[in-house]
């Protein structure tokens, strides 16, 4: 009896679903032990009866529910709760679902400002009112999935690597436990590190990092941080290269941006990165801004609009 997989996308970009297709030939193996019963982004299925009853969410029963995206509208919340009810097992699929992801950058602004920016830009006529009919209401902030519903497995990644998706689904089918390595990108980074170095300020990404800075006696390239470029590797979970490859951005000669979220689920990438920079004598006030260190993990109340509190005294 194949396991049933249902999938739903909330506030998402569909990249995670594409990553399912990216499994290659393993997709055929997957379809031997699993059937996809509902996945609007990949097949023709809707979460409601559009013709007769468009207001009620109706989802097929499934063993595994893959939910990508975070919760930003009331509709997202309703769908997430409906998925929880109709699936035995919920996988938070992708960094948006596990930590808030890119859309959670909106958490650094008040909802009014966001709406104002979208509907009343400088070049447009002033809108009389904001749309209220037929569009779902906005939540106060962007929530990660586990802030509202119980989540059984977290599969971070922007998008999650096909290796991990396949392994997760396979282990559910075989009723085995599933875990991802809790290591940082640095643990698996091919760069060679010399030690703390003399870097005092970080460079802007306006110049290119050097790829081969060593002579022939020493292979590889020098750590981006030691070259003075901000690389989120130390505070980011490893896995973007899958089970066999090394970190994708690093191999493309680009510093890590932190897409797999914090190394430990409840970590704060910005805090950890600032701490790492500061304890290595790098002047953190030389950074133009640091909020973007949370560009993939702004959920869970880590990113908030400024100014938030009145400082005493």
């Amino acid at each position, binding site marked *: 009896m194949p396991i049933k997989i249902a999938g739903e996308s909330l506030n998402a970009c569909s990249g995670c679903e594409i990553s399912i297709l990216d499994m290659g030939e393993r997709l055929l193996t997957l379809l031997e032990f699993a059937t996809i019963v509902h996945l609007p982004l990949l097949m023709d299925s809707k979460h409601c009866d559009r013709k007769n009853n468009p207001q009620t969410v109706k989802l097929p029963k499934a063993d595994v529910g893959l939910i990508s995206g975070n919760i930003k509208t009331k509709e997202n919340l309703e769908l997430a709760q409906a998925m929880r009810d109709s699936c035995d097992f919920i996988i938070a699929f992708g960094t948006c679902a596990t930590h808030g992801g890119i859309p959670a950058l909106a958490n650094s602004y008040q909802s009014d400002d966001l709406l104002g920016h979208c509907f009343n830009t400088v070049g447009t006529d002033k809108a009389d009112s904001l749309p209220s009919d037929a569009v779902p209401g906005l939540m106060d902030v962007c929530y990660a999935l586990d802030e509202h519903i119980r989540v059984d497995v977290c599969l971070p990644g922007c998008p999650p690597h096909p290796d991990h998706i396949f392994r997760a689904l396979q282990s559910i089918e075989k009723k085995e436990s599933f875990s991802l390595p809790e290591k940082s990108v640095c643990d698996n980074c091919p760069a060679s590190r010399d030690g703390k170095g003399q870097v005092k300020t970080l460079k802007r990404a306006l110049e290119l990092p050097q790829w081969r800075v060593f002579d022939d006696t020493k292979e590889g390239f020098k750590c981006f941080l030691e070259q003075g470029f901000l690389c989120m590797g130390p505070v980011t979970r490893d896995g973007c290269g899958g089970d066999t490859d090394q970190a994708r951005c690093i191999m493309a000669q680009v510093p890590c941006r932190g897409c797999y979220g914090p190394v430990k689920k409840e970590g*704060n990438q910005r805090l950890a990165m600032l*701490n790492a920079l*500061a304890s290595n004598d790098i002047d*953190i006030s030389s950074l133009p801004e640091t909020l973007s260190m949370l560009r993939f993990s702004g959920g869970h*109340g880590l990113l*908030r609009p400024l100014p938030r509190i009145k400082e*005493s005294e």
Partner: protein
Amino acid sequence: MPPRFEPVIIGFLCNWCSYTGADLAGVARLQYPPNLRPIRVMCTGMVHPDLVMEAFSQGADGVMIMGCHPGECHYLEGNTKAVVRAEVISIILRDIGVDPCRFELKWISSAEGSVFAELITDFTMRMQKLGPHKVNP
């Protein structure tokens, strides 16, 4: 009259100066409020900001880190690490909606039992004035 608010204050005290200083305050029978929960650490430089954040998320009303005076660190420059880490902590606290006044980094040598008692009294009174810290407001 409602009962007075008793703040929970977590203190990270370095083994070589501040913890000994606190010990001296006790031996000298100095009076100070019992709100501090001291945690002995080997050096203030080892107090990761995560620990301070965890204290706040678990409901502490105030957190103090206390170590040797600058230049007197047992490990030579552990407390200079603590200074830069404290800056990071203050930035993040402000951004997650915690009043940065609830966190303090102070120097106490092993001979300054009275200074320790004064600091704790002062900090506790300020936390009482500020009121309880609400986790995730």
